[in-house]
């Protein structure tokens, strides 16, 4: 699947997405991630054929699909609200895309039962969507996509309506499902953790433009700009002027990015090269504590041991792992 400088400009000149270019290999799991309104859902709709790009070329399986209806594109989609057909039972919901495609009844039956068995829905085939729990509805929505065996699966925030506990479980199931099917998955989410854990590659979008396309590891280690750096990783990366940490700037007008694990925090006697500050906030996370330290009016988050002894106002010192620094242009936000 290829997107070549695809743009969608709405009437009144509002740009949904601008010049998005993307190559997705067969069988790849690609996430589109960004804050709401960044254009990730629009991009998915463009791929599905629910919206038409105003310019640019879209190819699926080497064929230009601009102007083709969703039906002719052979992609399936799982929606955030699941969008199950409430007047049909689970069996008819699963059968719906096959019925529309005009498949013979006997084969529809086989496919539906096969898919239901795969997802553990066999017991629920006679139920209506209203009689299902959130997790069950989610699986029916997934089943309705699977049953077609399409070229690609599109997911529009499929987990965001689930309870937190269930979400992690389904996330794991989705990843296993992708391994088993070997199909192309395109996955839209605003949750950086979902994008990180699931994807082969992540497309970070902001204000309708692609910021960076890279593997989750690469995004974390080498973000293309301060937006990407700030979007990935919890706690957030610290972005401060270099002098705050007593660092020599390699150029003019630069900002330094330091991950929380690249800082070492201590109380009492400071070693040489350390900067001094005061503890601003301590957030125990169980296995560790996130400590916010105020240095020179700037706040930095540090990963500290779970038994960290300081509290708000305690004087503390920080040292920096100089290998782990990332430099950004303070004006443009671009990585240098």
């Amino acid at each position: 699947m290829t997107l070549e400088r695809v743009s969608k400009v709405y009437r009144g000149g509002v740009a949904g997405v601008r010049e998005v270019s993307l190559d997705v290999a067969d069988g790849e799991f690609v996430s589109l991630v960004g804050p709401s309104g960044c254009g990730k859902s629009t991009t998915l709709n463009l791929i599905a054929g629910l919206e038409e790009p105003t310019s640019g070329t879209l190819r699926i399986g080497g064929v230009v699909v601009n102007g083709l209806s969703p039906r002719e594109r052979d992609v399936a989609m799982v929606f955030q609200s699941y969008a199950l057909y409430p007047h049909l039972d689970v069996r008819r919901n699963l059968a719906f895309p096959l019925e529309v495609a005009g498949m013979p009844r006997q084969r529809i039956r086989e496919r539906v039962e096969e898919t239901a068995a795969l997802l553990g829905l066999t017991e629920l085939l006679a139920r209506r969507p209203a009689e299902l729990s959130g997790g069950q509805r989610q699986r029916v929505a997934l089943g309705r996509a699977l049953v077609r065996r399409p070229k690609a699966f599109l997911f529009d925030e499929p987990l965001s309506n689930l309870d937190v506990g269930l979400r992690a479980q389904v996330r794991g199931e989705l990843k296993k499902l992708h391994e088993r099917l070997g199909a192309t998955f395109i996955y839209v989410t605003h949750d950086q953790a979902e994008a990180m854990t699931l994807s082969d590659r992540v497309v970070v979008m902001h204000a309708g433009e692609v910021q960076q396309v890279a593997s989750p590891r690469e995004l974390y280690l080498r973000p293309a700009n301060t937006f990407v750096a700030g979007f990935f990783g919890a706690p957030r990366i610290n972005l401060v002027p270099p002098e705050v940490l007593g660092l020599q700037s390699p150029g003019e007008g630069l900002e330094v990015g330091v991950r929380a694990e690249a800082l070492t925090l201590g109380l009492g006697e400071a070693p040489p090269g350390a900067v001094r500050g005061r503890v601003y906030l301590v957030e125990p996370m169980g296995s560790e504590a996130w400590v916010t330290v105020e240095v020179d009016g700037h706040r930095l988050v540090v990963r500290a041991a779970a038994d960290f002894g300081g509290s708000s106002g305690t004087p503390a010192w920080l040292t920096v792992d100089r290998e782990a620094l990332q430099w950004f242009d303070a004006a443009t936000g671009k990585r240098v």
Partner: protein
Amino acid sequence: MRSVPTWLLTAALLTFFLGPFVWQVLTSLRPEAELTAPGLPRALTLEAYRSVLGGRPFLHVVLNSLVVATATTISCLAVGASAAFALAKLRFPGRSLLLGAALAVSMFPPIATVSPLYLALRAVGLRDTLGGLVVPYATFALPLTLWLLTSYFRQLPDELYRAARVDGCTPFQAFRRVLLPLVLPGLATTGILVFIFSWNEFLYALTFISSPGKRTIPVAISLFAGEHAEPFAEIAAASILATLPLVVLTVLFQRRIVSGLTAGAVKG
């Protein structure tokens, strides 16, 4: 336990709405000699009903009304539902303008349109036919249909339409197979309103129809007077008979109207 004021209010409302109807029922059952007597009748008779059903081609008139109202309702819903779907779910330029324009049509006072419509119907050969009533009825009921159904379609989540499209439906298939079944309660409600409108319409029915065999109920009842002296009992009996189909319709569809078919479509 309901409080006393609630009961009083309920009683007052029931008297207000049902009082005239009950009075009409009583009038229809009074012997002719007692028609102007005050209070409850001393004897009941079905004479008026017998006279209405037997002495005049009343059943034929009811049939005319049924045909006109049913045809109006069906054509109104067919046109209205597909148009409302497009207005609610498809993007095309000028759609809000279209809804406004539809409303403007319904603002014309019917009396102002009688003469031009009469000429128009005569020109196309529909004067004095039941079809000549269906066309203007459907035209005048369409704006209301459009507004009601558009709001029903708007209540359905957009994702349902988009899911149907991705599942391979053309826009029309998505309308027919997914959205239309979900607005059935809305169709029933709207249909009843259109049906009642055409069932009760008087002005056009009086003007466009000249042959007695093609009259509808309101016109037929109004013409009872003058043939005899003052056939109050028969008029009352005919009104009761004319109201019954509406009551039956409403009761039949009540469950449809109330039920929330869309439950479980999406979370929430």
